[in-house]
């Protein structure tokens, strides 16, 4: 009765030992590291797959991204510069194709808004606390103040 159990365990162990060798990206890289490969990967990482959601053409498995990879390789082989290749895709898909689009006035504003809000909110909070603090000490309205503070911190 014990033997089959051991046999089963042994089999399980053997199965686990030969668990499917995952074709890790690192392994693939070291195998096919052609001279221009690092450059191609770096460039492809900056290009957005147009048919995906926020995925670079390097990561995407979509056929469009694959074809774009082929085109990048071809253009690199032709000796085109990174800037020229980026411009090639930008002329076709616009800034959308760049995962890090060049800064625009509107883009800068969007990035700055949270900081502005934080600074403004902090200012307002400081002002409110300074004004209320003296009144809070003698008055019985303390719980209300605490609630206000809580609400402010929540915001």
């Amino acid at each position: 009765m014990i033997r089959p159990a051991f046999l089963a365990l042994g089999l399980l162990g053997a199965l686990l030992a030969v668990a499917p060798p995952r074709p890790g990206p690192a392994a693939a890289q070291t195998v096919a590291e052609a001279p221009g490969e690092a450059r191609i990967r770096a460039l492809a990482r900056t290009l957005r797959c147009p048919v995906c959601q926020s995925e670079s053409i390097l990561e995407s498995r979509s056929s469009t991204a694959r074809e774009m990879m082929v085109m990048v390789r071809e253009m690199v082989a032709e000796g085109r510069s990174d800037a020229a290749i980026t411009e090639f895709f930008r002329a076709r898909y616009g800034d959308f194709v760049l995962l890090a689009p060049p800064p625009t006035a509107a883009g800068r504003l969007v990035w700055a808004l949270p900081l502005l809000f934080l600074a403004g909110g902090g200012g307002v909070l400081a002002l409110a606390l300074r004004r209320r603090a003296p009144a809070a000490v003698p008055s019985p309205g303390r719980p209300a103040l605490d609630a206000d503070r809580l609400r402010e911190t929540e915001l």
Partner: protein
Amino acid sequence: MTTGPDPAAVPAPRSRLWKGALVLAMALTVGLLGIGLTREASRLPSALEGRPMPSFDLPLLDGEGRLVSAEAAGRPLILNFWASWCVTCRQEHPELVRLGLRARARGEFAIAGINYRDDAGNALRFLAREGSFPYASGVDPRGRLGIDFGVYGMPETFFVDAAGIVRGRHAGPVTPAVLAAMLPRIGVVP
């Protein structure tokens, strides 16, 4: 008695101000969210608009000969990217056939199809089922021309004026409303 009305009188307008600001901020957030969510990410303006149409020279899907961009020179051109695997393409098919028949009858503009990333057999079966286009389709099996045109998905239709400048791109099915908006841009009466 004197301390009673004071704290009550002072916080009232301030808290109203706070509430007002809060409501305004919330409304602004919801408004921005609304704009962000209703704006379709796929409705991006084409980088090609206002620029010359990319040239092409493709084999035909059906029959001998090639589809050459230079042949449309001097006339407005409507270029429709389609595929048999695209469901919306079936929806716009009758409208394209109607448009093709009109182009054939009056000749005021040219129209052509690009069979995009498709299998020729499937594409021909699609046409046998839906009805043939009254115009030629070139084949772009690997989607190279699609990349040249900045195509995102199927179907997409490009409107090119007589000078060869892309004046409009429509992603999604062609409808009478789309044609009413796009045809005047290339100098064609809808």
